[in-house]
């Protein structure tokens, strides 16, 4: 039997005549962990979707265990022993964890109790703390990801493809995940994983393949790579000094206090949380999943409501405010840039310009009776230029953009409102390194202009690179504050965990 579990030769996939991948050669060895790295739009997702039978190649060939194969559906791919854990959740939210795990493997008569017991044992064997009877829709992002991974393992796949598997996992969960992947490798399973966290690729992978603009750039053993070489291969230029660069040796002084949160409560996520945000500074907020960071700032922005009884106080510019919906918060100068851009950030079938125009309309009381397509186009054009959104035209739909460019549209949609307080929630999640640098520059420039900026991030190097002061949240409230000058990863993580 060949040592190659899966191979693609001269693989090309065209979307409306535009190549997403072009003449790509790829080999996956048996029992290896292979990282697929590249900027957004580099073709990683398309390449893996071809392997998983989600899309078919326009030209080129695919071989599984040395035999030609062309799976046309995920089910056909699963029969070939290939499973994919998608970045976007593919679970049925109204079913329980156990039902999702065994979906597609039902027998004529299924005893629910038997399914739950089997699921419980299986999840425990993976060290995943997920209740099998829980409804998937009620789970957090990290737990949903765990169920996705467990399902792939359960299907006894010989090739498992993970698309951004660790984006929503906490550091402890990541450790479990890495152990699991190494265990799968020992069992002879071949792993392909896509990750924007380059340390993960360097740490976990045996080999790394880098794609750029739909083309294969390089494949080599992971030991032959370092961070700088990967980034250079990904973007074609050296960004290592600009991305999460050297330690800060100065921080911006705090301006006037813009936001004060006092004893805020929203059971069970936010527990008596108090913090302040100052003008002309970037306040980084770090915490593990479930620390109540996002919920706190969603309450500030009127997306969520605090507890009805004795729910605490939000003070904006020395004035107590309580927003029941986001519109008045937007009018008062608060912009919340969501972590879940696909669900909350934009209307994907509308054009870039229209999306940005909607941001402006949101600030106007009662909206506007007559809309101006011309104004929308002009506004869209100016913001596309300002934020360097890569579009082919003003009418291009947001769904057609890469993750980084979509994120820029979400940011533009908020900045067009000229806010005083800008809350970025996971601003670079699922964004390629080139766009990360541009988004970071933008965030820095907003603070330089005197705006109060909040950056919520689960990625420590990002928090440390951006913030002037760092708040650490744990179990629903801020438990520690660091100046960027004194903060270290160890100190922050210790505060977040203990």
């Amino acid at each position, binding site marked *: 039997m060949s040592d190659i579990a899966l191979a693609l030769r001269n693989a090309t996939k065209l979307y409306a005549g535009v190549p997403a991948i072009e003449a790509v050669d790829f080999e996956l060895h048996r029992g290896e962990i292979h990282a697929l790295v590249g900027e957004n739009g580099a073709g990683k997702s398309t390449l893996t979707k071809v392997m998983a039978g989600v899309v078919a190649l326009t030209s080129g060939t695919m071989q599984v265990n040395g035999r030609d194969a062309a799976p046309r559906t995920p089910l056909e791919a699963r029969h070939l022993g290939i499973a994919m854990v998608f970045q976007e959740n593919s679970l049925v939210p109204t079913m329980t964890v156990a039902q999702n795990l065994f979906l597609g493997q039902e027998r004529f008569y299924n005893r629910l109790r038997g399914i739950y017991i089997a699921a419980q044992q299986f999840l425990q064997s993976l060290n995943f703390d997920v209740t099998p009877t829980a409804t998937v829709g009620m789970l957090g992002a990290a737990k949903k990801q765990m169920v996705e991974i467990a399902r792939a393992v359960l299907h006894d796949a010989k090739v498992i493809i993970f698309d951004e598997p660790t984006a929503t996992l906490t550091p402890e969960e990541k450790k479990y995940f890495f152990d699991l992947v190494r265990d799968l490798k020992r069992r002879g399973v071949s792993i392909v994983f896509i990750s924007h966290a380059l340390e993960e690729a360097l740490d976990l992978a045996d080999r790394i393949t880098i794609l750029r603009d739909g083309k294969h750039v390089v494949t080599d053993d992971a030991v032959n790579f370092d961070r700088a070489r990967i980034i250079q291969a990904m973007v074609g230029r050296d960004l290592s000094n600009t991305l999460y660069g050297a330690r800060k040796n100065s921080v911006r002084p705090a301006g006037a206090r813009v936001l*004060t949160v*006092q004893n805020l409560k929203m059971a069970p996520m936010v527990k008596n949380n108090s913090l302040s945000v100052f003008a002309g500074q970037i306040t980084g907020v770090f915490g593990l999943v479930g620390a109540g960071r996002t919920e706190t700032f969603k309450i500030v922005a009127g997306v969520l409501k605090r507890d009805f*009884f004795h729910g605490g*106080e939000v003070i904006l510019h020395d004035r*107590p405010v*309580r927003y029941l919906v986001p519109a008045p918060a937007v009018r008062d100068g608060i912009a919340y840039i969501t972590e879940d851009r696909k669900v909350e950030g934009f209307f994907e079938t509308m054009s870039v310009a229209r999306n940005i125009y909607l941001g402006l309309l949101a600030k106007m009381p009662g909206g506007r009776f007559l809309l101006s397509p011309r104004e929308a186009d002009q506004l869209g054009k100016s913001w596309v230029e300002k934020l360097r959104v890569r579009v082919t035209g003003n009418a291009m739909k947001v769904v057609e953009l890469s993750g980084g460019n979509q994120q820029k549209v979400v940011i533009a949609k908020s900045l067009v409102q000229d806010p005083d307080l800008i809350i970025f929630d996971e601003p670079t999640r699922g964004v390629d390194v080139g766009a990360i640098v541009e988004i970071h520059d933008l965030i820095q420039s907003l603070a330089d202009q005197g705006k109060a900026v909040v950056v919520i991030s689960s990625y420590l190097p990002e928090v440390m690179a951006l913030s002037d002061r760092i708040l650490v949240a744990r179990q629903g409230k801020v438990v520690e504050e660091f100046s960027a*000058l004194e903060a270290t990863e160890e100190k922050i993580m210790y505060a977040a965990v203990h």
Partner: protein
Amino acid sequence: MIAALKQFADRFLGRGEATITVPSFDGALKPNQILEQAETVATFEAPEDLAACGGALYIADGPLLRRLVGDSATLVRRFDRPITALCGLPDGGLAVALDGHEVQLLLKPSASGPALSFTDSSLNAVNALAPGPQGTLLATDGSTARPTRHWVRDLMERGRTGRVWQLDIARHRVSLIADGLHYAFGVAAFGDELLVSESWRHRLIAIAQDGRRRAVLDHLPVYPSRLQPAEAGGFWLTAFTARTQLVEFVLREAAYRRRMMKEIDPEFWIAPKLRSGFSFLEPMQGAHIKTMGVIKPWAPPRSYGLIIRLDDRGVPLYALHSRVDGVNHGIVAAVELDGALYALAKGPGRLLRLPLAAIEQELRA
């Protein structure tokens, strides 16, 4: 009627005026233990205020005026009443408030008698003095109802009778600048305006010449007190204790407060204190519990020590703390002299000294 209904709803839901919340010590107010670790220069029986005058440091200690010589305090003179405020004047003189009712001007600290005395019957609780514009003297008067020593009672009665006076030395005249303040305690010239501490509202306000008021620093987590100009520009603001949710709650409950004031020894009221931890009868808040005999530094404070460094716009730059587990609490005065910051911790009766250069380097880096 509508206001009464709204008040009832607010009390029921814990919102508006009935919100029992306290701001956190963060940003420039981030806690440290610098004040707790400060050198103790001397201790006094009843220290009240500090003043730098002619290159020397003067301490008001009950009715005694003392001068710091080296590391010991020598008696300069004795008054017939306790000193409630002290202030060095630009011409080398000293202004002294006696029992809150009288302000005396001394040409020099050791002068045998006052050069000028203001004994306006309106003066009741003068607690801070500062040089004003055009050779005048500014004074804050905490309350018309209670003397300075009964400041806790004024808080519990939700007093709002604080005033700011201007004492015209040339014309020997007292004029009212502002009244209706929630315990005025500390004043300083602030450009064309006056910067005034309003303790019970936890804020600093600027009062313009035409009487208009604006908040300069609001929603403080402490009870602000005296202000002293810093040599490098800006101010030193002292805070004699910190806010807690328990006290905020008691301040909301009028009937409870009345009964507490009637039946309980003031020492054990649920109220801010300048020192604590001396009796098991003292009220404590949820987390303010000793574990293995140690109070957690982040527990809700019954007493606290804090000095805030403000820039010339009144924006906090950094703060010096003595936290719940410390003893240097009840800071009522801070004065800069010879590259050091002297602070008066009224709780333990200590005069503290802090090296300014080292603090600046540590906290402004």
